[in-house]
């Protein structure tokens, strides 16, 4: 297990280096002058020259990369060209609100997806199965930004149940303010016992979370269904039937537990997908998170930010996959034997 972990971590570091090198080179190859962007459209030649020195752009490319890598390890991820603020500091400001809808969406996907997957396996080829298939395929194939707008149209425009966007309403932010602790409005307001704020923040986060949940919900449901069908056909399941266990015990205790492996793996993969989907969802819902921060950076060609986010997303993807593998190894003794 330890050898497996070391191997995965080393491989992860190698991937991170590769990604950092590629993003760094792309940022330098694109015809652009970061020093001019630093000063603004009306920069003079002297101001641009001074900015080059300030940003270290007067050094050889190789040295710039070495300095960048050094910085990654010491917490200096560069400075945003548009805001002149440290990239890491800004990333940490915007991350919690993205995590809020990503984790919320994943939670919805798990809570709804697993029971739905089990149901469809149990009631194979019935209307429940067909309906679930429709929901799953829709969830996976409908573009997130389109779904977001449709949900806005139905739940804001026609029904008036949920707000159009933003994290909390202006009135609540003004009349029932909270202190920022974690950056997650839901957690911060709950910790401070500010339930007016909490309910408003929850109300605002429902539509973004539902949009975020669509893709993982489809994946989790289909994965659970196919794994369940596979497991149900195993010899030992027939034995449990012979022993006279009830249908519920057989499904949830013996079948589902063994069918969870592929579901957990796919959930890890969908987390990475969620990190990029959030770019579109945040834009539609005016949700000030990592996605909105990155899309602004892309629009203004803020390379230090784009590079910082790319490295962050890569690292998050690697870590989540590593955690998934470890979880699987813990859940399934056969995997542990194989890796060791």
């Amino acid at each position: 297990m330890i050898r497996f972990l070391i191997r995965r971590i080393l491989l992860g570091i190698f991937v991170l280096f590769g990604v950092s090198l590629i993003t760094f080179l792309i940022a330098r190859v694109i015809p652009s002058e970061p020093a001019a962007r630093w000063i603004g459209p009306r920069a003079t030649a002297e101001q641009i020259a001074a900015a080059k020195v300030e940003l270290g752009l007067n050094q050889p490319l190789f040295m710039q990369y070495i300095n960048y890598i050094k910085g990654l390890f010491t917490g200096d991820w560069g400075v945003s060209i548009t805001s002149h603020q440290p990239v890491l500091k800004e990333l940490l400001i915007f991350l919690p609100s993205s995590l809020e809808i990503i984790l919320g969406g994943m939670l919805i996907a798990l809570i709804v997806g697993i029971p739905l997957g089990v149901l469809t396996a149990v009631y194979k080829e019935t209307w429940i199965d067909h309906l679930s298939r429709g929901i799953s395929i829709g969830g996976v194939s409908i573009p997130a930004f389109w779904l977001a707008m449709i949900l806005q149209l139905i739940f804001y425009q026609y029904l008036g149940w949920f707000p159009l966007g933003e994290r909390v309403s202006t009135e609540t932010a003004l009349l029932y303010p909270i202190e920022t602790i974690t950056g997650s409005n839901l957690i911060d307001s709950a910790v401070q016992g500010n339930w007016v704020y909490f309910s408003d923040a929850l109300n605002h986060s429902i539509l973004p979370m539902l949009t975020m949940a669509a893709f993982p919900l489809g994946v989790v449901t289909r994965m659970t269904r196919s794994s369940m069908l596979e497991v149900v056909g195993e010899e030992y399941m027939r034995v449990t039937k012979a022993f006279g266990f009830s249908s519920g015990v057989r499904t949830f205790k013996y079948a589902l537990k063994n069918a969870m492996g592929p579901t957990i793996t796919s959930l890890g993969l969908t987390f990475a997908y969620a990190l990029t989907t959030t770019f579109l969802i945040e834009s539609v819902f005016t949700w000030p998170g990592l996605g909105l921060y990155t899309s602004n950076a892309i629009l203004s060609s803020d390379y230090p930010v784009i590079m910082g986010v790319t490295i962050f997303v890569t690292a998050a993807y690697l870590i989540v996959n590593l955690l998934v593998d470890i979880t699987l190894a813990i859940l399934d003794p056969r995997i542990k034997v194989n890796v060791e």
Partner: protein
Amino acid sequence: MNTKHKPWYAIVLVSLFLLLSACSNDKPAKEADTAAEGQPAGGIAVYGSHDDIMTFWDPSDSYSNEIIAMNNMYETLLRYDTKDESFKNILAETYNVSDDGLTWTFTLRKDVKFHTGNDLTAEAAKASIERTIERGKGAAFIWDPVEEINAKDTHTLEFKLSYPAALDTIVSSGYAAFIFDAAAAEENGGEEWFNEGNSAGTGPYSPEKWDRGSQLILDSFDEYWGEWEADQYQKVVFKTIQEANTRLQMAKGGELQFVSQLPNELIKSVEEADGVSVHETESFQQLVMMFNTEAGPLKDSKVRQALAYAIPYDNIIQDVLGNTATQSFGSIPAGLWGHDSSLHQYNQDLDKAKQLLEEAGVDGGELTLTYVSSDEEERQIAELLKIELAKIGFELELKGMLWDAQWDMSKATNPEERQDILLMYWWPDYADPYSFMKNLYASEDEIVFNLAYYKNEQYDQLVDEAQEVAGVDRDKAIELYKQAQQILVEEVPGLSLYDRKYIRVINDSFGGYEDNPAYPNVVFFHDTYKK
């Protein structure tokens, strides 16, 4: 928040709140302040912007979108009013200029307090401008004519200039001319302190809460020198809403009082909606075509004139811009002093264009046009130009680029490597035609803004003289600028295609709003009220 119907989850939420509330003893909710006499009680005004509202908080450095909020937190000595092309006193009670135009004396208001609690004095005003000049960031260059600033007494501020520039236009600038409590700001940590969301201004509103990338909430300043009426807004919220459709829906839903910009294609649906209306106003923004006067076929002014006659002005304004612009007269936009609608305006006349090319002995050729790739309108205009210029024999190569790359190419050492035509938007840093006339077309040894590479001694003299007399004899300056513009019309080193209009969507309950293009996209919320 819209609560037309109760959703199913409300039951679950209510149960959850009751349960959780039972665990909580303190009640964070506070009642809305009851307005005292002479205090605003108009509620909250919300401004919807497509871009992040705050980038730089330091009033010395601010040179971007943040002026929208900054002009409500900070004030200048004067403010330019485009309606009657005059200057309004803001922090200055009176001002006068010496006969030689080199000494300007401002008497400051005596009842003004900074948000820091300190009084406005001439010494404080001097310190704030000197700090801006010393930092040399953003638009600090506007103070170039100022040689010396003196605090003659507690409320008398004197400027000594190196030449008789129009200081009234400079002190009224929306960038780099804010008066603030520099001493207190520096004591607290200077730029860092500002960037934490603090203000040291004298404006009617001060920052209450800033959620980066999301919203900025300003609160009315109790000790503001201007009077407060009951129907004025207590709080002003600037929201960043990137999606145009979301901005539109929120405006229709009454959640926004003011939307600064919407794409043309969405405007139609606002016109038909209840509770909101569309306001169209002039801006100082011009789309400028700069011709390469140093190399290639456009060295010849006849060829440039031919191009000016080949441009489909009406198609651009009607089809691309949906009539949200008007064709420019000369190089100074409407509303800015010096604008002259008697100047010759080119129209599309392909026969005339061909005749001019024949006179020049040029039989078409290849031209490169650069534009900012992220601007869809510029792209469409470039495509139209490609079609029309082909009719007079020019093949146009279109290059959509990032603005910094576009500028980089325009400053190539070898003139042959530069573009033939460059499209860009231009607007003044302060209400002075100097920004258009001097920056864009006056001779430069090192290329800065004159991307036409135009050199004309007579033109330079006229513009320099206009700038020098602008402070003491505005009418003469206007006449000189007119003569300079006539040279531009004849020689066409560049061409202003159109003056852009601002399209605002405004809630019907939002009163008192008047657009002032000298301060792009700024709403002076103290002038507005709830109807």
